[in-house]
């Protein structure tokens, strides 16, 4: 407990210190960050996992960025207009943007990237592109997206991880997956790819021709690959790295590291992703097919303990399917609080007859393992018989994708809008074996399905809020999954590194604004 309090104080001070700096940025210097695990590739159009986006977010850009309130900000588009009927989105591009190989970037690159390349390779964007009728480039600096019907979250899909700009002159007419240039990525971003010593580091250097005068400030960036969590802590403690992005070190190491001199911590920079954790409950078959059993599980979970003891107080208790940083969140939903007596009551009313519940921890390190152990303890206290099933990442993917579990920990990004990152978990049309990221629980509610559909294509924000509130109410009452925490990932860094996190996408949005105070 004492440890948590100490950390909370340190966090408060550091959060205060990490407020935007008003000093004049200083150019120059080198920044060393941890990257974990090593990305399989830096070609962001082909690979969309976290580590790839963190490094390649410096190399590739998209038309927009989003601040911590998810308001769109200019990136490769300097301005945009939305027609009154919500069907036409017109973007005007920045002037003098060049690819890292010196070629000009223009609107035909945008059309190629979205309509040809990413439509072929990017499953998450593909799901949004079904709403798009056509993409046109009337002149080199203008791009027009015309939709088939209004799509509420459309303006939220223009960040680099969802829609990275790909150079047409390199990829057009080639086999995208096997293009040799995939190993030496060319983007428009503030940093250029220099060298990748596999197993050791990725080296990026300043893009001298970047379209923003004076930016980036840093001369070079090294992403260091250190596979062991304890060694990553050592890397920071010995001064070999300056930044530990969220999730780099085990949570129990965080208070020790943040107590070091000149060390700041922030949980900002995840608002766009809204990492939301829950336990899948197998609604298809077994004990969790019974709503009363699911409610018994939900009220058994002491989530405040997990937040304080395992997550150092960073993050929030989830109130339902939509994260509080995601648009249209509604906290006025039925209670899912820890209530052991209520849990026992629900269990008594359920069809559960003592069978062993198979609980899959998320194989992402010690914090998740401990969380599963604490959860097992909670469930045993209610009267469940629970066994933890050990898996590695590949095994976890398969078991969850094949519905071979009763309870399974997971967390997913929400991408700022329920239509982009929440509905996929609950709609019936997204039930299919083989993927751990669809409606794995097998939740079926045709009434809610209709509401999801209606809310996604509504052009009015008020109407969307009303529909999403209704959805949240119903789903929370049905408890298809057991919501846990809105995860808070601490980014730990030397306090003299300024403007490291300036958007709701955080370090994944590139180090365009970062500078080192000397």
């Amino acid at each position: 407990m004492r440890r948590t309090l100490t950390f909370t104080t340190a966090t408060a001070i550091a959060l205060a210190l990490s407020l935007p700096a008003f000093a004049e940025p200083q150019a120059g210097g080198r920044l060393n960050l941890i990257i974990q695990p090593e990305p399989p590739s830096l070609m962001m159009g082909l690979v969309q996992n976290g580590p790839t986006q963190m490094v390649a977010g410096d190399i590739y850009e998209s038309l927009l960025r989003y601040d911590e309130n998810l308001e769109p900000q200019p990136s490769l588009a300097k301005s945009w207009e939305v027609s009154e009927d919500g069907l036409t989105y017109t973007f005007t591009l920045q002037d003098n943007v060049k690819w890292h190989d010196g070629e000009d970037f223009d609107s035909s690159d945008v059309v190629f990237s979205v309509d040809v390349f990413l439509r072929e390779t990017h499953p998450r964007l593909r799901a949004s592109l079904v709403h798009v009728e056509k993409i046109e480039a009337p002149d080199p600096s203008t791009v027009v997206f015309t939709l088939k019907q209004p799509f509420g979250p459309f303006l939220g899909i223009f960040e680099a991880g969802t829609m990275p700009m790909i150079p047409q002159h390199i990829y057009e007419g080639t086999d995208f997956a096997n293009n040799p240039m995939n190993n030496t990525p060319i983007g428009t971003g503030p940093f250029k790819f220099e060298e990748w010593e596999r197993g050791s580091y990725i080296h990026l250097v300043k893009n001298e021709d970047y379209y923003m005068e004076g930016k980036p400030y840093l001369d070079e960036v090294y992403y260091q690959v250190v596979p062991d969590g304890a060694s990553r802590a050592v890397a920071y403690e010995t001064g070999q790295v300056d930044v530990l992005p969220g999730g780099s070190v085990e949570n129990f190491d965080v208070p020790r590291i943040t107590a070091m001199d000149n060390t700041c911590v922030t949980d900002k920079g995840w608002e766009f992703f809204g990492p939301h954790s829950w336990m899948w409950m197998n609604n298809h078959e077994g004990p969790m097919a019974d709503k009363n059993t699911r409610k018994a599980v939900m009220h058994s979970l002491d989530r405040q303990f997990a937040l304080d003891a395992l997550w150092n107080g960073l993050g929030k208790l989830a109130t339902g399917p939509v994260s509080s940083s995601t648009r249209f969140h509604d906290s006025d939903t039925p209670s899912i609080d820890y209530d052991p007596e209520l849990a026992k009551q629900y269990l008594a009313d359920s069809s559960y007859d003592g069978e062993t519940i198979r609980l899959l921890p998320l194989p992402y390190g010690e914090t998740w393992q401990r969380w599963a152990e604490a959860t097992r303890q909670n469930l045993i206290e209610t009267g469940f018989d629970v066994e933890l099933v050990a898996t590695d990442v590949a095994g976890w993917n398969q078991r969850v994708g094949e519905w071979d579990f009763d309870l399974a920990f997971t967390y997913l990004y929400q991408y700022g809008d329920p239509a982009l990152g929440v509905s996929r978990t609950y709609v019936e049309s997204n039930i299919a074996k083989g993927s751990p990221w669809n409606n794995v629980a097998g939740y079926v509610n045709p009434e809610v399905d209709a509401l999801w559909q209606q809310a996604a294509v509504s052009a009015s924000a008020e109407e969307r809020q009303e529909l999403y509130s209704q959805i949240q109410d119903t789903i929370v009452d049905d408890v298809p999954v057991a919501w846990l925490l809105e995860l808070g990932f601490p980014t730990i860094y030397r306090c003299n590194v300024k403007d490291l996190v300036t958007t709701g996408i955080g370090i994944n949005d590139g180090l365009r604004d970062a500078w080192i105070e000397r």
Partner: protein
Amino acid sequence: MIRFILARLVKAVVILLAILIFNFLLIHAAPGDPAAVMAGEAGATDEKFIADLRARFGLDQPFGVQLWLYVKSTVQLDLGFSYRQNMPVIDLIWDRLPATLLLTLTAFVIALVLGVTAGVLAASKQGTWWDSIISSMALLFYATPLFWVALMASLLFSVVLGWLPGYGYETIGANYTGFERALDIGKHLILPATTLGLFFMAVYMRMTRASMLEMSRLDFVKTARAKGLKNRVIQRRHVLRNALLPVITLAGLQAGQIVGGAVLTETVFAWPGIGRLLFEAISQRDYSVMLGVFFVSAAMVLLFNLITDVLYVLVDPRIRLT
């Protein structure tokens, strides 16, 4: 001798082929495949994405066809392509080989030299406090988990004392060349090589000691003593030479594994070697890399076994070439 070596080579090829097939079956029996892992990492997927990946990895082919294609290409010394890393497997292994050889060979030499020396010392001082200290130390090094020793060494010498770098192969971005670079790599090598070496040292020490004591009790040693030879000569020329046979066997077996790398040590010290390549490939189910590393290390084990057999004949003339 040449006929002996040729016969052994033929046998080795047959064994290698059996290992190839066994590895392939074993790996495919594990849950999950590379397409599922990559789709999982993307955090979103649809049927087309999974199908495209499976086609790229060749997983859409019938199992028998996959096995046949694998054996055929490996026999032609083509270890395949890692679609995950977008590189030929042989290039990935080749890139990591120098770091692994440097680490494992240094550790091997440390283990062998210190282990045999300590073993001889302990045996010749049997029953004294020398013997007790050496034996206890060996037991301690052998019994303590390698990753824990590695972490503690890193904490003490890197974080607390600040004497040595705690991880990595060389100072990143320093761009040293020539002697300066060698010195820099040497500094980075000390902790991982010693940690790995100490574990194996304990094994060699115990084996040398036991073997020396066993030999000392045999008749030919008594005869040598009766002939009036000095104890030092008896120990070196008669006891040690015979006692080294089991040590050579063990060293031969371990030398074969040198190419396979040291998974734990390489992981804790972020040493960019083959052990880590394998470890990461396993967690990502990167089949072609896993099979490539298994193939190379199996081939090396067989090669070193052959070398051990030849050395045996040279060290002990009683062993016949059969």
